[in-house]
């Protein structure tokens, strides 16, 4: 979410445990703007924080003029000094998926692969050296996974130009109250996967400039999103049950929306069906 909107956003999206103390909030307001200046981002979003055992990582994202371009991510341990993270690769994601346990809170910490899985050791020991995974890479992979899985925006907030770049839609006035309750009015902000599988009839109703992303309706597993009206029904808050800690808020009929992730960076995957069924 935008740093300028951070104070109100945190009020609206607060599930209680953001872990952003007042000092950090004040620091963010200043340091995010400086990030924008130094890295020449067109806009900077505060993505959230990942809690580790010894410390917490605070993550910010910088975007260029095209919102669909790969984003640069930065992390900080104190919300004042930021370091750029390397872009995520498929390898990183695979390796990070094998790790369990909380983050340590120290970016230079190296997980020894041998602890993790004895069977896969044979595969990787061909090189002759034991693989270690740096916490930084694990962080990158986790953020990428979370964004890809649960980074959402309201429908018609972003528009695709004929040239393929994605811009903010200036005519977006917010979702109406009835629309805000439906999961189909929220989109994943990543490469669409299900869009091609829609029937022709469905595609006929879509507007290609605004409906170019996957909606949340057909997310697997079903029921992994909770939609609630908080603050007396004035804010609609979506929380993911798959990635516990992701909160998306939107004030209907206004332009305010945003999402923040504050958690341990884990997907609660297997047996989600089991405890989601009711």
């Amino acid at each position, binding site marked *: 979410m935008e740093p300028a909107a951070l104070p109100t956003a945190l*009020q609206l999206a*607060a599930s209680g445990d953001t872990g952003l103390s007042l000092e950090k909030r004040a620091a963010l307001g200043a340091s995010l703007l400086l990030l924008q200046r130094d890295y020449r981002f067109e806009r900077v979003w505060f993505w959230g924080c990942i809690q580790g055992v010894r410390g917490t990582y605070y993550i910010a994202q910088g975007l260029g003029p095209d919102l669909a371009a790969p984003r640069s991510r930065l992390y900080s341990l104190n919300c004042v000094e930021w370091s750029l993270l390397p872009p995520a690769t498929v390898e990183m994601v695979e390796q990070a998926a094998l790790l*369990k346990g*909380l983050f340590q809170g120290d970016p230079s910490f190296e997980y020894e692969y041998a602890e993790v899985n004895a069977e896969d050791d044979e595969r990787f020991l061909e090189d002759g050296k034991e693989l270690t995974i740096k916490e930084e890479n694990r962080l990158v992979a986790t953020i990428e996974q979370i964004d890809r899985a649960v980074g959402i925006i309201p429908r018609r907030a972003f528009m695709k130009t004929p040239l393929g770049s994605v811009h903010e839609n200036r005519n977006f006035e917010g979702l109406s109250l009835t629309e805000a309750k439906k999961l189909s009015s929220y989109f994943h902000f990543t490469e669409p996967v299900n869009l091609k599988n829609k029937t022709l009839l469905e595609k006929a109703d879509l507007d290609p400039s605004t409906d170019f992303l996957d909606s949340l309706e057909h997310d697997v597993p079903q029921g992994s999103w909770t939609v609630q009206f908080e603050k*007396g*029904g004035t804010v609609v808050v979506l*929380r993911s049950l798959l990635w516990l800690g992701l909160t998306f808020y939107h004030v209907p009929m206004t332009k305010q929306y945003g999402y923040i992730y504050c958690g341990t960076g884990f997907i609660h995957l297997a047996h989600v069906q089991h405890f989601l069924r009711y």
Partner: protein
Amino acid sequence: EERKEAGRAPPADKQARRAARAAAEWSGAPAQREWERQRQQVQKPSLCPVNRPRELQQFHRLSLKASLPTAEANSRPAPSGNGCPGNGCRFTSVASEAEGLLGRLAMAEHGPYLPHEPGYGLYQPGYGLFDDQTPDPDHRMLACQNAKAYLLQSSLTSGLNLYDHLVNVLTKILDERPANPVDIFENISKDVKAAQFQKKMDTLRDEHEILPSFESAEIRRNLFFKSDAGDEEREEELGEIPLPNVMETAFYFEQGGIGLSRDETYLIFLALKKLVSVQPIQTCRFWGRILGREKNYIIAEVQFREGEEEEETEEEEVIDEGDKRMDEVEDEDEEKEKNEPPKSTYKPPPVIPKEENGTGANKHVYFVCNEPGEPWVKLPPVTPAQIVCARKIKKFFTGRLDAPIVSFPPFPGNEANYLRAQIARISAGTHVSPLGYYRFSEEEGDEDEEGGGGRDDYEENPDFEPLSAFEMVESLSTWVHHVPSILKQGRCVWFNPLQKTEEEEGEEEEEEKDEVPDELQQETGPPLLTPLSEDEGIQNIPAWTVSLSTRLIPQYAVAILRSNRWPGAYAFACGTKFGNIYFGWGHKYSLGNHTPALPPPVQPEYPNGPEIREAADPTVEEELAFKAAQEQKALEGMEGEEEEEEEEFEEDEEEEEEDD
């Protein structure tokens, strides 16, 4: 229309030219654009049909739009008043400027089509301005009027006409002057069309939409009304109110970044006050908030005043006695009928009774509500069976207290019970206080009790000397648990289920001989007021994470404790104040993913031993072979000794007979 008559200041000539250039760009083809510009310079007066009153009336007569009121025609005197100066068209209203543009636009699109029509040559590339004969202004005028008439043609479906619509759109654009209007032109057009239909002169009026947020707002507003005079008297009597200063606690948590927004917290504060005024409460505390799928729970931890507990315990006893009577009646009936199938020898494991209200896991009573302002609902006390089951399942709360919990192992209760069980577990696991804040009250005889429950009572230590925040953060031994941990059995104080009460001994005398009661080992947990440094972590992760709220101003820093076993449980300590709170989903941290318990294997029907094992009947060959072997033995015996022939023969005969 009204705005057009508003009498705007005459736009500058530059603006007109700029607008005209824009209009020229719209028409597209470069040749036409140039022609437009040249036309502008040379033949301006004839290009302003609206400025000629004579043409105007003629024009309106030609118009197919019947609804255009003639008053309009009379109310456009201003533009014509100024006339058309030679060097440029001067429009006195933005609207007429727009119309002029449109006129020119129309001209470019719908001019002379056929070669014999004058002005035809001017559209063809290559033709100069003076190549052909100068076009007849009247013909040009006619073409212009035709074009405008076409534009004024009203649509059969919507009743609008393009001319007025474009005028409105351009008016709006020129009024608002958005950046890059060409990018959002279609949207502006749509907005203008939508605005047309808002003033309906229908007799039917739209019913005011009653949003659900209005009702919630009403509920919240009721929190702010002061209670009536009866409570005021009570307040005067009690010097202290049992209500804690929630805002103060929230302030300290806010330093650590924990907690809801301030207005939400204030509403919760007021809701707690309402609770206190309704129920006879001795101490009260905001316990935390548990998220659910449809609604969330706000939980208050409460201790009733002594002697003012609810009458629920009596009701439960009545129920128990009623059941016992029923059992006795049934036993008598069964003894009479001897055709009953044999009773199963299955004895369910003894039900471990719940702890008394006010002790152990049921020390506090919890009230919940979904939103601040809604009435508080009391949660039932927790039973050990519920805690044991809650440890095995992991379910998200829906937000409705009566929702069933369908799980394996089956949870004895509905969501209210599950919620209460989780609250009990969280409290037992994460409620901590600084070392020395509480101390054991000095009572004798506690250590002699069997079961070794240890000391249960603690009280605030008047000699408490607070440590600085820095020291609190340095090591975990400065924090202690002040809630007894829950044993495996599901209680805080171990209960021996084999101790039979006097009533039950009579019934079970007979059955005692059959069973060999297993000796249960007494379960003990860590004693009260143990420091956190003795808490086990999960694999490599310590059970708690400490941090200071600020490193920059350590004098005023608050020590914040975060639990890793129960993500969402926080505690703070600052000087003499401390607090605990929970914001989360209500689940314990599990390293892998939660695997539900599998059902037990199918129970065997009977014990499997060799005596019931089926063996195949011997086949004929086997029998003959066996007989042959026996005969051979007999022959050998006969050949061996003659003296024993008779005996052996008899024996053989016997054996043979036996074989048969």
